[in-house]
């Protein structure tokens, strides 16, 4: 680890973030995520908290490690557009599947089992 500190200290001429600070944040969030799973929070609260933490972590990686902060903005646009499309896909599919009735789900199960037996 001594090397990494030396590396951070020695790169003052580059517009680089403190990578180790980002690392500690990622580590802290990961520990917190695992901790939260074993608490007795409600499912809705748990999912919301975990999703927020995951996106903060992903954001840290993209913004600092992948240098989006220091790069041309066109790269940020390229990074964000798939997320918007993905959000639409997740939204539409979740909405669609949440409107399956029990029998529809049963049909889906039958179809799955039929595929299994093949």
């Amino acid at each position, binding site marked *: 680890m001594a090397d990494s500190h030396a590396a951070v200290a020695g790169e003052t001429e580059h517009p680089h973030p403190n990578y180790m600070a980002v690392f500690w944040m*990622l580590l802290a969030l*990961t520990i917190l995520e695992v901790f939260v*799973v074993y608490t007795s929070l409600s499912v809705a609260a748990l999912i919301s908290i975990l999703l927020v933490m995951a996106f903060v972590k992903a954001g840290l*990686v993209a913004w600092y490690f*992948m240098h989006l902060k220091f790069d041309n903005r066109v790269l940020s646009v390229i990074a964000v557009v798939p997320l918007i499309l993905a959000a639409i896909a997740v939204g539409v*599919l*979740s909405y669609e599947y949440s409107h399956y009735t029990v029998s529809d789900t049963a049909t889906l199960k039958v179809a799955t089992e039929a595929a299994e037996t093949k």
Partner: protein
Amino acid sequence: MSESVIAVGQDHFNDPNNYSDTITKVSNWKMFMWLFLAQDAMTFFTMFAAYLGLRISQYATWPVPSSYLNIPKTAVMTFILICSSVTMVQALAAIQRGDQRKLRLWLSATVLGGLLFLFGQYLEYSELIVHEHLSMGRSLFDATFFILTSFHGLHVLSGVIYLASVLAKAGRYTAQNYTQVEIVGLYWHFVDLVWIILFTLVYLI
């Protein structure tokens, strides 16, 4: 970095400072990698969307992930991948200072991180298949788990090979010519980023 570096000939395309001849002012290499990552992200997120849809449709019978999956062990794998992202940024920082020895050192550490992750995944799969009897055909829980994690694992494997190929050619890179190190880094961080989302969606929630 100095803005006055003028590259000619073959190095022209490798010079990270020479953005002037592209419309976007971004080097073609970096632009290509970002576009690749954008389409790869869409592939992953479409799979996540399908996974969430299927899970919602079987909300009542879907098992709690932690009843099958080992969260603490997977958290260690997450930790390894985050560490390998840090060694990757250190490798890039090293070559930006012109330090090839440190570049080799940090890239080797990154490769090692990737290999450790793959070994962890091997242990996890063995345990799940042999002891928990998970299989692709048994349930949608099993099938989505294997498809998502193996697709990511394949990315890690490709990343390890890609990193090793950059490591093998480490002697070519200098403080003025490091674009290839930068874009292998972009790929590697992306693999880490996807794992962060996957870990939450598949293991934690």
